[in-house]
């Protein structure tokens, strides 16, 4: 704990870098998952296909996927960024689809009855009503991504993982503890924050 006292600025900067990496990946992952989730909500076959592929991707252990991505992209931030975006897809797509499917058919019929186009129906009725479930997916994805981003330290990405793996390599247990505690605290804080957002939306 004394390390946190003397190096708090360093730990804070790494926490910021960690969060930045996760948020950038989450933004891109969300942009990809929205159309996929809409397709999965509309057709049963699309849902089976998309969620089947993403589910299989999700079972690949993170270290293994990361290792393959390092072969493709080299060391640094890029492989962990791609891994984060890929892993988030399963949870995000599943929740977008579940949220849209959960919209009351009566609301949908009412929207069609007042002459909404399919595009308006999606943007002004289905997605807003699905929002709490979608934010729930974002929360689960964000927490998982904070954990996975820690592994980035092993392949040379900036963030709290750099502190942990540096500590592991040099046997500096105070660095390991500081990195572990900070990443745990960050995950809990983001979880609580998004839980609050979820509740406010319901």
């Amino acid at each position, binding site marked *: 704990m004394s390390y946190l006292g003397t190096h708090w600025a360093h730990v804070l900067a790494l926490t910021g870098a960690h969060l930045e990496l996760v948020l950038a990946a989450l933004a891109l992952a969300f942009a990809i998952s929205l159309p996929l989730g809409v397709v999965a909500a509309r057709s049963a076959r699309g849902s089976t296909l998309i969620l089947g592929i993403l589910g299989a991707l999700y*079972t690949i252990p993170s270290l*293994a996927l990361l290792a393959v991505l390092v072969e493709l992209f080299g060391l640094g931030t890029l492989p962990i960024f791609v891994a984060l975006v890929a892993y988030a897809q399963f949870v995000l797509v599943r929740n977008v689809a579940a949220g849209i499917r959960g919209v009351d058919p009566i609301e949908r019929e009412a929207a069609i009855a007042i002459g909404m186009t399919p595009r308006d129906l999606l943007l002004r009725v289905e997605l807003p009503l699905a929002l709490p479930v979608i934010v729930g997916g974002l929360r689960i994805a964000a927490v998982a991504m904070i954990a996975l981003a820690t592994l980035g330290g092993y392949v040379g990405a900036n963030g709290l993982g750099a502190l942990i793996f540096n500590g*592991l390599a040099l046997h500096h247990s105070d660095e390991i*503890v500081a990195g572990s505690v900070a990443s745990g605290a960050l995950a809990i804080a983001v979880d609580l924050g998004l839980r609050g957002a979820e509740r406010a939306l319901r």
Partner: protein
Amino acid sequence: MWASILQHAVRHAELCAQALALAIAIGAPLAAAAATRARLRGVLLAAAAVGRTIPSIALLTLLLPLLGVGTAPALVALVLLALPPIVVNVDLGIRGVPAAVLDAADGLGMNARQRFARVTVPLALPVALAGVRTASVEVIASATLATFIGAGGLGDDIVRALQTNDPALLAAASITVAAMAFAAELCFARVVRALEVRVT
């Protein structure tokens, strides 16, 4: 290469099986006891929620200064990792037993112990096992990270492949871990389905 992978796969499976067995032995009775005690249940589920949030690599490395290097800290971390889904699902399973069924059991003259063993447990089992299934996949994936604290397993091969730039070893080890996770998932899915059919 395959000899090394086989040896590490056995070690990997051993570590995971031990962690899962311990987590079930600790988590299931705890969750069962808490299901009827509101305060204990609140504390347990809150702890499970926090436990689920903490990154697995943080759990593994956090125990390093306390327990040192090797199997012990890895086993403790994997048990901690497996506990939340097991606790949550055992609770969900027990709470999901319809009150009418419990009333019927009382009406048949069962005592509390008989009711728990013959009614609650069989009805809660499919949901509880679904939790074990989630836990098993997480444990198998996370056990790969146990290499960083010297506990062996297939993570050793993956790390060695990365360090020596050996794509063949990397692919073989990665596919083996993924296959183990996938096999565990399929196995438990089948058991859960069989139990559901039998009960309903």
